[in-house]
């Protein structure tokens, strides 16, 4: 009996392990991603509505900036996402280089446009806020400049990948760019500590937060919404990349939506 449970447990572990790797193949991941997208998309929409409601209707005005500070409910999540997505992109790119897996490189390509979008939103909303608050749309301080470089890295990754016809070679070349560029992310994060910048320091620190509670709630909820949105969009995009790249395979020819 003791043996029996042991074997069952071992089988369970083996099954878990097999299932885990099963989903790293585009064939199975395609279906899994399709099932997950609605969940992420719907919860993103709900959380965004709640977050923006708290942010614009419940949270009080700021004692210095008045209503202008409400830009943070978009600006801060966009900035955080732009940096995190780059690290995830570089991580997938590295996985693709090391293990030569197809899906990793496809994930990296799928993340890039969303990351670029968030970097752009971060710069754009920051400029809109900077003019009335600082008195300038743009300054070449370390935080702003390194975030601009992040946007260029995303665009460079997309452009480099698009410029090479053979997808496998395109994966490898753009993966190198992504990995090299990841050095920029800690520079963005620590720029406000390392140098004198016009951009303010971090409000959310490991030691605590200097922010009103309702403002915090709204910001964290919109942050979660942005994460869920990013996951939903990336999964949708990776599905079309899989379809495009594996279009000559039988498993795609046999998909109901392709056959239909």
């Amino acid at each position, binding site marked *: 009996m003791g043996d029996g449970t042991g074997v069952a447990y071992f089988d369970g572990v083996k099954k878990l392990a097999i299932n885990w790797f099963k989903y790293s193949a585009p064939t199975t991941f395609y279906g899994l991603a399709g099932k997950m997208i609605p969940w992420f998309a719907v919860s993103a929409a709900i959380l965004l509505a709640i977050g923006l409601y708290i942010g614009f209707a419940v949270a*009080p*005005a*700021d*004692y*210095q*900036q008045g209503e*202008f*500070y409400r830009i*943070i409910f978009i600006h801060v999540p966009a900035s955080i996402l732009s940096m995190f997505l780059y690290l995830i992109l570089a991580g997938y790119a*590295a996985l693709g*280089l*090391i*293990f*030569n897996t197809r899906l990793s490189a496809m994930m990296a390509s799928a993340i890039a446009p969303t990351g670029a979008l968030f970097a752009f939103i971060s710069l754009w909303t920051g400029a809109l806020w900077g003019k*009335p*608050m*600082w*008195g*300038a749309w743009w*300054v*070449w*301080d*370390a935080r702003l400049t390194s975030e601009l470089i992040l946007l260029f890295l995303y665009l460079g990754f997309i452009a480099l990948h698009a410029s090479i016809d053979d997808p496998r070679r395109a994966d490898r070349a753009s993966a190198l760019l992504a*990995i*090299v560029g*990841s*050095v920029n992310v800690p*520079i963005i994060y620590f720029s406000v500590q*390392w*140098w*004198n*910048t*016009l951009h*303010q*320091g*971090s*409000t959310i620190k490991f030691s605590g937060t*200097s*922010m*009103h509670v309702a*403002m915090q709630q709204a910001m964290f909820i919109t942050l979660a919404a942005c994460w869920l949105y990013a996951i939903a969009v990336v999964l949708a995009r990776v599905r079309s990349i899989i379809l495009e790249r594996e279009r000559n395979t039988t498993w795609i020819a046999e998909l109901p939506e392709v056959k239909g």
Partner: protein
Amino acid sequence: MKLRQKRFMFIVAAVVGLAAAVGLVLNALENNVSLYFTPTQVANDEAPHGRSFRIGGVVEEGSVKREADGLTVNFVITDMHKSIPVVYKGILPDLFTEGKGVVAQGRVEADGVMRADEVLAKHDENYMAPEAADALKKAEAAKAAAATPASAPAASSTTE
């Protein structure tokens, strides 16, 4: 070593090497990357001479004086150790207030006064409701009031 381990080690070594190189470059560039000099740096002669640069600090309390033309403003930028007077003609940003962060760009003349072409407000990382800020100010005032009795007799004795 397997090929994939080799590739992994190669990528790790490349990223570490690159990070070290970038770190050294940024360290060497330190003053050029910073947006502004502090008044202490200016006092220590670290700021450039004869050309425009930026000074950053806090607007000293009670130092803001507007001239009759309504546009020219005099104020003092301080970092609590050294301070530099600034003259600026133009429109100030909304966040410009005494006791808050500011960055001014211009030349420091021989008399030690900066003639600024541009004044930017530097926001801090605190977000508060106005009532909370008021409460904080009151608490500080109460604390200050509680602390003064010790020094007050001395002050009054000198006036008498």
